[in-house]
């Protein structure tokens, strides 16, 4: 900055001009970033990215239609399940999505981690869960940290420990 010009009073050196330019610059940068930050399909259907719908529609389905698909091969398990507490559950609720397994049964296997955490997602005692509708326990106090499958067979939850009533 030339020293001779310091203290000059031209319009372009006035405070209002300088700060106005800076502010304008900020607004221009904001407008520019905004055009790149907002996805092109935003607002197509509503206040969200329209492409999101197309992307979800085109996603590969992870889950099968229902238990009847599983029953084609795993008839024995489905029969065990019939008539007891877990009969209304979908197989994939515990076993995980199995669509690819149904397409390539040998190549893709379903792995289930039979931990207390898995069962706790339904059976842990929390305020939001009615004890009348679902058997809830405090998992650690109930099993001492052991996995639920040590005593319970998830396909017939109460069978292995002596019948219907505990």
């Amino acid at each position, binding site marked *: 900055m030339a020293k001779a010009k310091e203290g000059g*009073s031209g319009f372009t050196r006035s405070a209002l001009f300088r700060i106005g330019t800076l502010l304008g610059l900020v607004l221009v940068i904001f407008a520019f970033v905004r055009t790149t930050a907002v996805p092109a399909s935003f607002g197509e259907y509503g206040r969200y990215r329209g492409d999101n719908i197309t992307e979800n529609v085109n996603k590969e389905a992870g889950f099968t239609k229902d238990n009847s698909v599983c029953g084609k091969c795993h008839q024995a398990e489905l029969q065990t399940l019939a008539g007891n507490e877990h009969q209304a559950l979908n197989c994939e609720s515990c076993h995980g999505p199995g669509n690819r397994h149904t397409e390539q049964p040998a190549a893709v296997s379903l792995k289930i981690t039979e931990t207390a955490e898995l069962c706790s997602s339904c059976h842990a005692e929390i305020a939001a869960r009615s004890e009348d509708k679902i058997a809830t326990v405090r998992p650690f106090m109930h099993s001492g940290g052991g996995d639920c499958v040590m005593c319970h067979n998830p396909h017939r939850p109460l069978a292995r420990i002596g019948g219907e009533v505990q």
Partner: protein
Amino acid sequence: MEGFIYPNEIEINWGLFIVLYPYLTGLVAGAFIVSSLYHVFGVDKLKPVSRLALISALAVLLVAPLALISHLGKPLRALNLMWTPNPTSAMAGFGYIYSFYLIIVLLEIWFMYRKDLVKWAATKQGFMGKVYSILTLGARDISEKALHTDHKVVTFLAILGIPSAAFLHGYVGFIFGAIKANPWWSTPLMPVIFLLSAIVSGVALLIVVYAASCRIRKKKIDFDCLMTMNKYLWVFLIFAFVLEVLEVVHLAYEAEEEWPAVRGLITTVIPFEYFVIQLGQMVAAFFLLLAARFESVPKTVRKFLTIASGGMILVSVLAMRFNVVVGGQLVSKSLSGYSEFHWPLWHEGVIPTIGFMVLPFVFLLALVRLLPPWMAGEEEAVLQPASSAEDDTPAVEGVWGWLVSGVSRSISRLGIRGLWREE
């Protein structure tokens, strides 16, 4: 937890960070209004704190959105507020309302400091000289005419800033007031209550910050300035208190179906926070501030009472934010039960909250280094304790003596001269 609540009411979603958000924005609005009292309404006695008020406002303003953004969990999503504004959502307006106000405050500070910036750029050497030089933006004209323009701009910005500050904070109250499902929040009074408690807390902050800064810098506190802040704090405090109580009295008198739930909230769930910390301290501060206005009270006591009231108000308003934000979520939508607030330590907990409350002062320290807000002509503090040459009161015959004589003398004066007169 007591009574009957819905499952999704177990967790209090708006925790301590959301308590901080109205608290911090409130401090900003209040501090800004003090500076406006000087710049717009010509309350000259506030001159010693006029710059400090703005700098404090900026320091707190910079922290206010941090609490909100931290609460989001995914901080970068906050920018979506800016990229895709939603005109039908009050909450989504924050980005723009906040940015607008930030720009006003920055502009006002820049124009206010421009003359000094040019001077510092010319005199300071090395790195700081460069910083000041950049901060001048190359506008180095400090002729009388240019400064006159600056002054006009500052006044204009201060005038524009008052509704902006009121809007920023009234808006925070509006968000709560507009939630019709929550009986403890849903009242059109909410923006006004928030605004007034904001002003009160801002003035209180300024009293405390000013007193602390004088102590640290070993300068004498400008007594007139302190008493003027005392006066405004006292007046705004009355309005804030009346409105806060009015809201509850109104609920009680209407006695609609939500009143028992609200009554239960304030009498059994948060009675200490509400009646003692929030309202009790307001009442106590009211009397202490009033006591500090009596001339017969020794000046040191008057100073102490004012500063102590400032501290009490700061705690009281923080409690008010807590009682509103968290209290409102404790009442079940079933109106027949209360949830429970657990004080988390880390995750949106006490420790980061304390961090966010300290952070404005760290910013303030840095800003004060960069832009010293001190006014020329300050007196050095006299460090001789209680020589009390300045106190024209006679030797105190015990605390009771000066209390009785002071109160009676001052009460007799009240009717004639009024509290409003600046002596």
